[in-house]
């Protein structure tokens, strides 16, 4: 396939638009989570602060994502080619909402907490939580990728030597 010319660039622009579409809304709430203490759920920004992040950790937040994180990491370590599958599994248990809302008892999971917050929280603390979980996911993906790359390099060195 030709790798230059107008068609190539048009396709790359479309790809970039898709990435913007994916990240745009997340970026909005990331910015809004730094609202000042008087800020609301929408723009304009009323000052810049980490007030809502501090606020987030004051009440007890319960999540069940620690366990699933550990599991998907070890899976990825066993077989690098399973990363895709592991990420699927991680994501699905991390974000198990529809099933948890029906089956969970008094133990709250993170998605349930978020859903409850959408109905009864009217402050940017909601966005602070969203930003935190997004950053957390980023950290997981970067860690897994770097681990896989390091493993491959090690294996390549072994084969060469």
């Amino acid at each position, binding site marked *: 396939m030709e790798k230059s010319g107008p068609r190539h660039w048009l396709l790359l622009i479309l790809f970039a638009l*898709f*990435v913007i579409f994916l990240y745009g809304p*997340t970026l909005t709430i990331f910015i809004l989570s730094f609202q000042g203490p008087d800020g609301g759920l929408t*723009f304009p920004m009323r000052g810049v602060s980490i007030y809502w992040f501090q606020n987030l950790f004051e009440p007890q937040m319960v999540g069940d994502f620690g366990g699933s994180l550990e599991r998907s990491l070890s899976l990825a370590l066993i077989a690098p080619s399973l990363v895709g599958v592991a990420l699927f599994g991680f994501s699905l248990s991390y974000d198990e*909402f529809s099933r948890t809302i029906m089956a969970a008892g008094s133990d709250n999971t993170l998605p349930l907490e978020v859903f409850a917050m959408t109905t009864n929280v009217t402050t940017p603390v909601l966005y602070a939580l969203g930003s935190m979980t997004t950053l957390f996911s980023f950290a997981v993906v970067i860690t897994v990728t770097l681990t896989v790359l390091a493993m491959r390099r090690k294996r390549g060195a072994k084969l060469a030597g």
Partner: protein
Amino acid sequence: MSLPAAAVPSGAAATAPARGRVLPSAMPYLQALPLWLVMGVFLLIPIATIVMVSFWEDQETGLAPTFILDNYRDVFATQVTFTTYLSTLRYAAIVWVSTLAIGFTVAYVLAFHIRSTLWQMVLFQVCAVPFLTSNVIRMISWIPFLGRNGLLNSTLIGLHITDHPLEFLLFSPFAVVLTFVHLYALFMVVPIFNTMMRIDRSLIEAALDAGARPIEVLRHVIIPLSLPGIAIGTIFVVTLVMGDFVTVQMMSGGQSASVGLLIKNEISLLQYPEAAAHAVILLLTVLMMVWAILRVVDIRKEL
């Protein structure tokens, strides 16, 4: 080989030659046993329970384990069922077309227009990361963007494209479709990308050498060979949209219905037999759709 495996299970691992002291003929069954146990306990028994409860009678004092068809009669007797199915199917169709167009394009760019394997991997991860964050958070992140005083409306007013905020952007069918596409586009990208990466590059070269234009290569080589990935992505997207209730409830502001939402409401009202009957019919509908997709495309060829 350096690319992340997609969510397509491989059957290769299960066919290792039978060794050990156990009777050789029993070995395959033993190897398949864990899968059967998992499937049985977590899939077959729950579904059998739902089917059973759908025939039970809802009485004032509780559920009576009988065998009546009233629940199903109630489902088909009301116009609500049909309008709800129609609305759900419409969402599924619009979301399917949108995710297919976006997913195919993105997978095509990743597979054929990114030179280095490292960059392919990096960009694939860039597409995959949002998928790892909570769906509910990705949903609510549209609210400050689409809202009455949201970013989009402020921008449009600032650019003098419109003089009053557009009301249809949030809490509308438009918002539901947009959120669905945002949430599920990746389910299309991953399987299509996976099949595209397996296309033998020499086939494309041969087509180009034989004088085919790029658009003809796309139409006669790439699309036919990507069909299994398209089918898998379609199954993902269609089943997810058909069963959804959270997105529809949240993004339509309660103004739109879906079958999932109908079932959820019945469960909230403790009408379990009615909900079970609805669930059985929804399950059959979705299974028929999956069956139809598998009739059109043979995905087994690719697995």
